[in-house]
């Protein structure tokens, strides 16, 4: 299990979702991916994407205008 980070700042939805999806394809079950984004829409889109595709959202944090969403890769 390893930790990864994805910079999706300044990207507008659905680009953060697409980037997350493509990054997750390179990871293995149990890996953690922190997605950093600035589009607040990602807060609904990334969890929706995760629910559909069997991944888990471990949480999210926001500071200033940035949002970090933590995804754990599912099976």
């Amino acid at each position, binding site marked *: 299990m390893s930790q990864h980070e994805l910079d999706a700042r300044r990207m*507008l939805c659905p680009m953060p979702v*697409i980037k997350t*999806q493509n990054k997750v394809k390179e990871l293995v079950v149990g890996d953690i991916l922190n997605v950093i984004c600035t589009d607040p829409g990602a807060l609904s889109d990334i969890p929706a*994407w995760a629910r*559909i595709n069997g991944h888990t959202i471990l949480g999210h944090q926001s500071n200033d205008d940035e949002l970090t969403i933590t995804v754990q890769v599912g099976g």
Partner: protein
Amino acid sequence: MTTKHKAIALISGGLDSLLAVRVMQEQGIEVEGINFYTGFCVEGHTHAIRNSDKDKQKRNNALWAAEQLGIKLHIVDVIEEYKDVLLNPKHGYGANMNPCLDCKIFMVGKAVQWIQENRKDGFDFIITGEVIGQRPMSQRKQTMPIVAKESGAEDILVRPLCAKNLPATKPELEGWIDREKMYDFSGRTRKPQMALAEKYGFKDYASPAGGCCFLTDKNYSDKLVDLWDARGTREYEMDDIMLLKVGRHIRPKPEFKLIIARDAGESKYLEGYRKQFVTIQIVSHNGPLTMVDGDIKPEDFELAAGVVARYGQGREAEQVEVHISVPGQDVKIMNIKPLTVEQVNEEWHV
């Protein structure tokens, strides 16, 4: 033992693809969804920009539809490849800059490619929510075989909502699906779809007025054509197509255009371009941030600032202070008189 057949469905996020998938699921077909992001899709992004859109639709409809259907969704970035579809549509444009028929052929073709690239997943056929006569350009009786043929999908393209009006496809002939349990919808009416949605218990589905993308919007198409004309080339980048969705666009001279934010959300979005573009900010009064697209000469700063000041709270003031930031240079401070309504030429509005 019966084998379970598998299909990939084009999901736009609208009602028709939602229904088409459910019709196939009812026949025991395992479905996964695919959604293509061209950059022009109505989905997403604008809600991230405008204040007024903040409370509206916060969801991505394609993801929402997939969740309702309990299927996986693959979102594919086709921004680069789509340029050729938009710039050179073999079948031409619809009412605006929408190359719907070529677009459909392209997307179904990408689904064919997906099936080939993901052979291990064993997809047998493709589903779309097309309905004969629903859209004047791409969904006509004559265009249905064109999409099937030119995309390369041929007889593995199934349109469950109007299948009964079309020749039988391979999945029907092979007995994987039952033709009788599909539909014969046709024409522009939405009633049969709404009734089917009711039957399946779908509520809250998206129903975009024009089509699935901004290219069907007259205003948007006009701005796109203006951009191409002004540049003398039809090249475009992602930033260009995003910026066409933001702000008020005013072109006082052929060489440059002002993109004036309409609210704080848009100002904030334009902030992100400060390092690359000339920006204009009113400082003596409240006013929107403005980005200059194109080549502005210093002798036109006053004109540009005068237009921008018209859209700030100091529009009636004798003088307003305006800062012009050119990347890599010191900020230029100007005191100017805002232009009057009459002075902002009607024809400048893009």
